[in-house]
């Protein structure tokens, strides 16, 4: 039965992933932002596991496990730990208001779909149609980083972009070879750690985590 509904399920997971990206774009509270990121990680894990089971690509099980460990458990825990130490539960104000961000998001999704059309037609994989969605989620997380002025949401935007890339990889080519998966995962983990350290140093130096304080280096 799973065999028959497999491709629709993968498309469903892709749609949910896109929905989560939109939700993160419009989210005000930081805590729910982190939970949404964890949810996105979980959907990615399910989709990878499903594809692994459908296509019998055993190395995808490994990458699914890696996603689960890293993007569902480790990183959200680090982010929660960060929020608790900085005791910041304030809501997140954005540079441009939410409705316009959503509009821009929609335009980006249309652009991503058109762009991905030729590639998805060429892709032989069962999940070829999801490449457009993956590209859209990458662009949306890019937009999220631009519109957020606080440091932590920018970090979350960066991490969700990594999710989008992983989804694109599984969508187009059933994931990159294992050694690359490990390398990328390691880089993302170290990156998150370093960003955490930075947020602490910025907090200690500027006693606020708003990037608007980080505007001294400019041309006069």
């Amino acid at each position, binding site marked *: 039965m799973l065999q028959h509904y497999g491709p629709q399920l993968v498309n469903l997971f892709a749609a949910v992933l896109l929905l989560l990206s939109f939700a993160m774009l419009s989210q005000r509270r930081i805590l729910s932002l982190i939970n949404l990121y964890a949810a996105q990680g979980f959907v990615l894990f399910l989709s990878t596991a499903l594809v692994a089971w459908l296509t019998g690509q055993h190395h995808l099980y490994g990458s699914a496990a890696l996603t689960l460990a890293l993007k569902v458990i480790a990183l959200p825990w680090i982010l929660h730990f960060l929020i608790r130490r900085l005791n910041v539960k304030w809501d997140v104000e954005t540079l441009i208001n939410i409705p316009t961000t959503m509009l821009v998001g929609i335009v980006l999704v249309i652009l991503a779909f058109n*762009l991905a059309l*030729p*590639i998805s037609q*060429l*892709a*032989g994989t069962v999940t070829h149609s999801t490449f457009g969605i993956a*590209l859209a989620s*990458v662009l949306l997380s*890019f937009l999220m*980083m631009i519109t957020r002025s606080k*440091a932590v949401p*920018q970090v979350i935007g*960066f991490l969700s*972009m*990594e999710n989008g*890339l992983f989804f*694109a*990889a599984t969508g*187009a*080519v*059933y994931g*990159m*070879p294992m*050694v*690359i998966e490990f*390398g*990328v995962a*390691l*880089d993302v983990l*170290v*990156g998150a750690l*370093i*960003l955490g350290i*930075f947020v602490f*140093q*910025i907090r200690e*130096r*500027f006693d606020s985590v708003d*990037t608007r304080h*980080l*505007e*001294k*280096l400019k*041309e*006069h």
Partner: protein
Amino acid sequence: MAPEIALLLASPLAGGIVLALFGHRPRAAEANIGFSLLTLVAAAALVARVVADGPVTVAGEQFFIDSLNVFLVALTAFVAMTTAMFSAPYMRIERDHGRVSAGGMRLYHSMYQLFSLAMLLVLTTNNLGVMWVAMEAATLTTVLLVALYRTHASLEAAWKYFILCGVGIAQALLGTILVYFAAEKILGAGVGSLLWTHLDAVKDQLEPTVMSIAFVFLLVGYGTKVGLVPLHNWLPDAHAEGPTPVSAVLSGLLLNVALYALIRFKVITDGALERPFASHLLMGFGLASVVVAAFFLSRQRDVKRMFAYSSIEHMGLITFAFGMGGPVASFAGLLHMTVHSLTKSAIFFAVGHAAQKAGTQMMADIRGLMRVNPTVGWGLMLGTAAILGMPPFGVFASEFLILTTAIAQQPWATPILLVSLGIAFASIFGKVQPMVFGETNARRLPHPPALVPVFTHLALVLVLGLYMPPYLAAWYRQAARLIG
């Protein structure tokens, strides 16, 4: 695994680990130099081997050395070693001034070695995925170094450096995925279709539309690391706020390595598409970088920031040269890469000492270097003359070749290039001259500055300007043919 490459990669790794533990010890700087020297010896051995029996693939085609990346390996190892020599007294003075803690010294030395490991990995690997991972590692190692002083500005610079480069490299990952996607159709799944040598063999069968989209992502990705203009904003802050050895290595080497990666992909994309899409993009970005950077120069007040913009301008010129393509232009691009990294690192060494001596990086407060310490003054003056393309030095030789080919192939671009080079000359020389000449009350520093690296670099650049040893010329021509 061929012994040279093993040693080449093992010594910085070992250095990184050892110095992570003993980095704060007084003898740590000498150890740092030792490890870099070991790497240089390995690189020399590798060069000898490649010169002797041509391109070599090692360890099941995971590593691939040909004439293009072997001279970059040699250059990276050499400049890393000289920067280590320069950083010994420099960091000791910074330590005495209390700007760097014991932990900071440990972090500095270990990250320094890991950074050279990352760069050498990018240069030697044949696997495009590993290349991406190594490039990301290079960014990670340097972002902490940029924030070493924990001042207001260095934190801001590090944050911007990380966010912008992180986003940029994410695009590069998407580009690599697409290249893998296109290659997989012909070479089948698995690591095989990520190896550059395989891709190079089948590059004309690759799917054109996918390759063009992939090249766009890669250009935005690695272009951010090279500092091409619309994506350059992080570069001046990162190069100016970190400790000077870091700025020297960033400006001198990391930009070259990023451009090398971009060139590797350009070779494949050119093969895949018949129309010169990739070359036109490179030329466009290169020209924009030269023009915009030239205009930035005259607004600068911080000396390292000014030379960071000069790096953007020179990288733009090199990208323009590779964009033009053809044997002479590529030859000039490679030559310019070499002389630019040698000269720019020499300038940063001299600027480092000058800034330490005057206690500030603001050009208005640095005066009369010739009076206080003639060697630093002369180092800065000759370095500036070299970087501005004054003839006896090698930078003029490569600029002459680039401009003459530009006159032949793209006559419309030449006046624009020349005007911006002229403006750059006017602004940089106008600001450096008062720094070097004139009266001052700056005091001498306890530790004598290590200026051997400055004058070895400038001597090399002078030699390249006047007399090109035939084997080096043959080497560059071979690499230029490879780029096509």
